[in-house]
């Protein structure tokens, strides 16, 4: 059995998105900035994609800026808000400890430029409390940036409430919605969002394409200087086939959101209860306020990379927050942020399900994970110490 359970890393492109992309590569490869018909045809495709993307999230087309992906959108959102803040002498930014590195590393850079950053606690369940956002906002706060859904543990934040607080206090609100767009209902107006980042390959679109929503009136700062594309806010000839394929994938995946959510939630909860039967294991992140596709567990006494390799041998592709999979000595900052200690965080497993997952596959995953965890514990000195009472169980 072959099961791709790493959809938070990337998704398979939909057939419609591939078809859209290929046909544009073949037929409408003109430059949208050219004035002759072939160029103008590409321009039409581009603007149609913009309107489609805008419609899905409740924005206007002129509020959508196409980027090379989520990281670029995050960078530009933060840079722009920081620039606007700086002009008014407001140099305080609020975020959370478990944001994506596209946010955290940009904030580190801004700190070096004189900004002050407050990282909110995400608590044991991986959720931010709106009242803590309200309490953290100061007179000199220029931006609150909180991810919509976490990429590792899938927790969904109270975005609308946080947005409402920011509106009341007249502070810009950005959300990194890379994991959420097309998977949970988003309406930028109703959710009080000023800036939102998204990435096509997380919803069956192509890699290298994404978008930034910026509410009308918010002046964006360029990351890339050059021509006047994207109304002068992002230079470079537009990736028309990729952008159109993104719009196609976004419409398609969003249109199936209700059925996808119903099915995935059922599969997710079955998987969670199956894995919870493993002794000394724990679900990471809140059980209900989470993406319908996300399951993330810690298993005590084992290390995540060996777990992944053995699951791969059984045909299951997943990921882990262990240090060995990150290339650093520290395990995932997300797991540390929700209070998992190093020893336990090394033994984590993330399964992010695809919409086509079947009950039979979930059963197979449960059985495989149980087998592999018990096999690895069988020769783990850590597990031996825990079982003999020499060490203390944490989970």
């Amino acid at each position, binding site marked *: 059995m072959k099961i791709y359970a790493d959809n938070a890393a990337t998704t398979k492109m939909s057939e419609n998105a591939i078809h859209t992309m290929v046909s544009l590569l073949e037929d409408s490869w003109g430059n949208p900035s050219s004035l002759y018909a072939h160029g103008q045809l590409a321009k039409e495709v581009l603007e149609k994609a913009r309107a489609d993307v805008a419609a899905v999230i409740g924005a206007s087309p002129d509020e959508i800026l196409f980027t090379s992906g989520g990281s670029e959108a995050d960078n530009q959102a933060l840079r722009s808000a920081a620039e606007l803040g700086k002009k008014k002498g407001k140099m305080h930014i609020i975020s959370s400890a478990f944001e994506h590195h596209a946010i955290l590393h940009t904030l580190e850079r801004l700190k070096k430029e004189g900004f002050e950053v407050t990282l909110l606690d995400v608590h044991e369940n991986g959720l931010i409390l709106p009242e803590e956002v309200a309490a953290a906002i100061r007179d000199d706060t220029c931006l609150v940036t909180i991810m919509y859904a976490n990429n590792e543990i899938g927790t969904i934040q109270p975005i609308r409430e946080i947005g409402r607080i920011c509106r009341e206090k007249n502070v810009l609100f950005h959300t990194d919605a890379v994991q959420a767009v097309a998977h949970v209902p988003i309406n930028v107006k109703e959710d009080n969002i000023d800036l939102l980042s998204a990435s096509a390959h997380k919803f069956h679109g192509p890699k290298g394409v994404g978008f930034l929503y910026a509410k009308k009136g918010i002046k964006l700062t360029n990351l890339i200087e050059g021509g006047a594309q994207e109304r002068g806010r992002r230079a470079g000839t537009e990736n028309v086939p990729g952008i159109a394929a993104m719009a196609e994938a976004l419409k398609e995946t969003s249109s199936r959101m209700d059925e996808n959510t119903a099915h995935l939630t059922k599969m997710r909860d079955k998987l969670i209860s199956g894995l919870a039967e493993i002794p000394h294991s724990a679900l990471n992140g809140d059980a209900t306020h989470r993406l319908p596709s996300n399951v993330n567990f810690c298993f005590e*006494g*084992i*290390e*995540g*990379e*060996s777990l992944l*390799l*053995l699951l791969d*041998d059984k045909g299951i592709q997943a990921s882990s927050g*262990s*240090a*060995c999979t990150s*290339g650093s*000595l520290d*395990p995932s900052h997300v797991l540390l942020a929700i209070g998992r200690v*190093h*020893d336990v965080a*090394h033994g984590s497993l993330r399964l992010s399900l695809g919409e086509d997952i079947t009950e039979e596959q979930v059963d197979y995953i449960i059985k495989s994970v149980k087998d592999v965890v018990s096999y690895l514990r069988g*020769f*783990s*000195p*850590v*597990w*031996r110490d825990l079982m003999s009472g020499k060490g203390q169980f944490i989970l």
Partner: protein
Amino acid sequence: MALYSEKVMDHFRNPRNVGVIEDANGIGEVGNAKCGDIMKMYLKIEDDIVQDVKFETFGCGSAIASSSMATELIKGKPVSEAMKLTNKAVAEALDGLPAYKMHCSVLAEEAIQSALEDYQKRTGKTIE
């Protein structure tokens, strides 16, 4: 291109000499769970020969493969030879390790050194 060589995957999938020696006369444990790797080596030494060796490892694929290979390299060998086992020899026998995984082979060398030190302490012998 796979992450690991076939040799590493073979030793990871079918680790040699896994387990515990109840009457071991040299035991060494190195690493810590905080960093994600712990290796424990059990030696049974008789007549200055490593008669038996077993290991337990908490760690990534290359940590398990390095432990397994290290036990293979010293089993049946004189203790003086086991003493000279280097991490480089372990990594080479595995057809190489990714650069950021070399510390796994270092850990295997250290685990064996630590077990041999324990043996010397217990027996009062000095390995030449």
